[in-house]
């Protein structure tokens, strides 16, 4: 192997792949077969980039040659950059050698579209197939579904990959028309639908015949760019909800737009990456998936955007003060989960803790609950609670004041979710 040449290619093709924020390697439990190489489990972050993101997969493009010209993408045809392409065997060797040294959980392979969608998809599949069949590799493989790829290829891809994803990138159809005129909305949807159908079909078959092979056991995911087309938070979260529901997405990722172009349709170079907004969207996503919230409770026509000062749960609570205060010792779990400052972990602690004794402030503090936020919304076994009839703006003001300093660095904390 010519290591210098490989190094050049790796630099180019890893650099181009880094804007895909997904790095999950969990959700699949492929076991090590016949004393071969690798397995998958909860997914391990083997290191973290200097911007604080988990590195668990070798994330590269097969090539950054592309026949399309999507304005938001560094790989676009009209961009004057160095181009490179890996050979199939080179990707296989890199993956195996990184894996054996415990650098990674597996491979995340994407690609620019060269020649045609099908031609590109075929090459991605060839890498995965080689890894599984020739190297007896049971680690994690995430393949990008190329928009417009045929059903037959999407079927084959799922036989080797743990996860498949198509990035929708632009949350609104009008935005897509503006920024990616070569691509049709339908091209994204088609492979997504095929994968969804196959996942369902395989699940059904597995119920009857246990030995049915796996089809994309870690499901599919997608990504949306945030802040490139002036879309609202409502646009983003409603379309995320649509994908969770109708395409059985495992995850939707939100990626703050990193300016890479002087194109006048896009935010100019040097404009700030909307990281706080991205964080708020992830928080909302969690509320929808794990906390029992409906998207219309958080965002609607009157409130199309999230509050940047406070997290979305607090925002909801302040708009719905009639549900509070909640009695910690009596309330149902679903209501506990709606109290600002109380995360799912704390909900479980409260439920098991209150079996033994009636909980007071001291207990709640020991459980690690953020009382500076929660105290306005709860009562517990104590005569000491917030009796003043405060309005939403006052509570918000007081909470912000108590957080000052501690949360000033919010902008830097990529994913500090509420606890």
């Amino acid at each position, binding site marked *: *192997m010519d*290591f210098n040449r*490989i*190094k050049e290619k*790796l*630099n180019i093709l*890893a*650099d181009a792949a*880094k*804007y895909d924020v997904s790095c999950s390697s969990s959700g699949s439990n492929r*076991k*090590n077969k016949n*004393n*071969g*190489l*690798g*397995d998958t489990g909860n997914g*391990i*972050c*083997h*290191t*973290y*980039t*200097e*911007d*604080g*993101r*988990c*590195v668990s997969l*070798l*994330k590269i493009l097969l090539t950054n040659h592309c026949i399309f010209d999507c304005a938001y993408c560094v790989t676009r045809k009209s961009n004057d950059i160095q181009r490179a392409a890996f050979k199939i065997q080179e990707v296989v060797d*890199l993956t195996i*050698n*990184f894996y*054996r*040294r*415990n*650098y990674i959980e597996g491979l995340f392979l994407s690609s620019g579209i060269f020649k045609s969608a099908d031609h590109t998809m075929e090459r991605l599949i060839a890498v995965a197939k080689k890894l599984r069949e020739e190297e*007896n590799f049971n680690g994690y493989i995430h393949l990008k579904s190329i928009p417009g790829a045929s059903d037959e290829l999407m079927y084959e891809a799922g036989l080797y990959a743990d996860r498949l994803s198509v990035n929708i990138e632009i949350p609104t159809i009008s935005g897509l028309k503006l920024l990616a005129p070569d691509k049709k909305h339908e091209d994204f949807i088609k492979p997504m639908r095929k994968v969804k159908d196959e996942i369902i079909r395989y699940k059904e078959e597995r119920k009857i015949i246990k030995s049915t092979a796996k089809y994309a056991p870690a499901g599919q995911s997608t990504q949306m760019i945030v802040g490139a087309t002036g879309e609202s938070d409502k646009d983003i979260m409603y379309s995320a909800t649509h994908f969770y529901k109708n395409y059985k997405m495992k995850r939707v990722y939100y990626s703050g737009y*990193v*300016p890479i172009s002087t194109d006048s349709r896009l935010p100019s170079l040097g404009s700030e*990456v909307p*990281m706080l907004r991205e964080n708020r969207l992830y928080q909302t996503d969690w509320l929808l998936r794990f906390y029992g919230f409906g998207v219309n409770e958080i965002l609607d026509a009157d409130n199309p955007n999230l509050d940047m000062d406070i997290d979305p749960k607090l925002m909801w609570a302040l708009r719905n003060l009639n549900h509070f205060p909640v009695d910690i010792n009596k309330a149902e779990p679903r209501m506990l989960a709606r109290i600002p400052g109380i995360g799912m972990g704390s909900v479980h*602690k409260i439920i*098991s*803790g209150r079996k*033994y004794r009636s909980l007071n402030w001291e*207990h709640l503090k*020991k*459980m690690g609950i953020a009382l500076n936020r929660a105290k306005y919304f709860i009562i517990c076994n104590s005569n000491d609670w917030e009796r003043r009839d405060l309005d939403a703006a006052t509570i918000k003001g007081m909470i912000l004041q108590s957080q000052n300093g501690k949360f000033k*660095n919010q902008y*830097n*904390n*990529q994913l500090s979710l509420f606890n």
Partner: protein
Amino acid sequence: MNTSKTLVYDGSFNGFLTAVFVGFEQKLTHANIQKNSQFQSGLFADTETIFTNIDKAQRVWNGVRKKSNSAVKNIYFAFLSEQNTIEALLYHYIQKLMGGTYLGATDFSDTSVLKINQLSHKVGREKHRMEAFVRFQLTKDDVYFANIEPDFDVLPLISKHFRNRYADQQWIIYDVKRKYGIFYDLQTVEVISLDLTDIQTNSIEKSNAFTDEEYEYQDLWNNYFKSTTIKSRINTKLHVQHVPKRYWKYLSEKKEAV
């Protein structure tokens, strides 16, 4: 009656459980259980040397298992923390568990329960970190070799993970601090001790124990690590929080930073 005694054991987990057995047999309210390597005889202390007995150890362990599954894990993990006086704390904890006054992991009225949970949690975190941060280097005799220097004695906890994952390659993970390692020879995992004169950290100097390609792959990995960073999002604080500096010297992607 309030009785107390010093029990000296060999440092192994089974030795510790045997000591617990002996303590219970003698109805000791407090057992000052100490490793023989650290033992200093007190002036007036009543001392007994414990000989590890697998049967006795098993009986204690089965008793614990019947009471609580989470306690099984907590006790073992906390034991591996090697904290000072951890044995006495665990003795108290097992006493409570057996006496039926244990209320589960959420019983924060008892500081020993809280402390053991915290320690177990810390050891668990270290286990995960080691599963992530081990960096194998390929030796000329075809063994993937890694050094680690964990805060706690986690080798027994990570062995299974590596055995399951790297079933088709020989590997050694060596704990430099505790001077022992585990070696997988394609059949089983064995405990070994090596005479390592020069410890293979990721130093810039190359060792000729490793293949030439080894350094090429480290270099590629280094490059990869660099090119995945998005410059406009750099966040050093978060980075160091995830990858604490004390682990850097064994991480090849941190070669230049050390």
